């Protein structure tokens, strides 16, 4: 242990003097414990990489500025820096919580906007226009019943009273209206779906 600390102190001292290889040795020596320490807190590989990198950037800056006090505690010092960065990370994430959308559950299935988007609005308008044109092609008696039923939301009883025909006749006209519309749709391959 004593030897390891002395060796760290020597490497740090060499690095401050300009030996870049000393830093490489220090990183190689401690990377696993520092990386493992950060990962044990954040549990995310990418975040761990970021914090590991930031920790060593701080280490490099401090050493190059000559602000490091050699007390034979290089590793605990780097650990402390890493620990502080982990705290910063959690603080930042608490302020701005992220939702992990990688699982089976899709948040957008819950918070999706019920309103139609611009494209769907146009399609809907087009479909309604096509249906209106189909209705215009129907014989007058069928058209009358269908308009009352579908657009004025009248019951067949009300329709029969208004048009002066029996309920059965109104029902029949409605049925024929739908059959005729389907025929035209099939004949011309009209697509009426949104």
């Amino acid at each position: 242990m004593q030897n390891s600390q002395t060796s760290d102190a020597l490497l740090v001292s060499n690095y401050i003097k300009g030996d870049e290889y000393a830093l490489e040795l220090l990183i190689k020596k401690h990377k696993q414990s520092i990386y493992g320490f950060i990962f044990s807190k954040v549990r995310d590989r990418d975040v761990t990489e970021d914090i590991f990198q930031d920790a060593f950037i701080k280490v490099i800056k401090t050493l190059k500025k000559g602000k490091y006090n050699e007390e034979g505690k290089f590793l605990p010092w780097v650990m402390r820096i890493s620990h502080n960065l982990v705290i910063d990370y959690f603080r930042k994430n608490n302020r701005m919580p992220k939702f992990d959308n990688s699982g089976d559950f899709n948040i957008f299935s819950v918070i999706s906007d019920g309103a139609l988007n611009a494209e769907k609005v146009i399609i809907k308008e087009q479909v309604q226009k096509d249906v209106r044109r189909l209705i215009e092609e129907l014989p007058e008696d069928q058209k009358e019943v269908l308009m009352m039923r579908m657009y004025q939301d009248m019951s067949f009883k009300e329709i029969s009273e208004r048009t002066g025909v029996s309920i059965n006749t109104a029902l029949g006209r409605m049925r024929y209206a739908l059959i005729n519309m389907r025929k035209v749709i099939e004949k011309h391959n009209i697509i009426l779906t949104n």
Partner: protein
Amino acid sequence: MAKLYSKNPKSEKLNPKDETISFILNYSKALKVTTYKNITFEAILN
């Protein structure tokens, strides 16, 4: 015996990526700290 398809987390070694190490070492080589009358300047030299 049934096969285990789950990964054993203990077998994974926790080590930073080589790119990360390489970035740190390159950063160290590029960083130049100059002090002039109590003012410290940091410069990244490429």
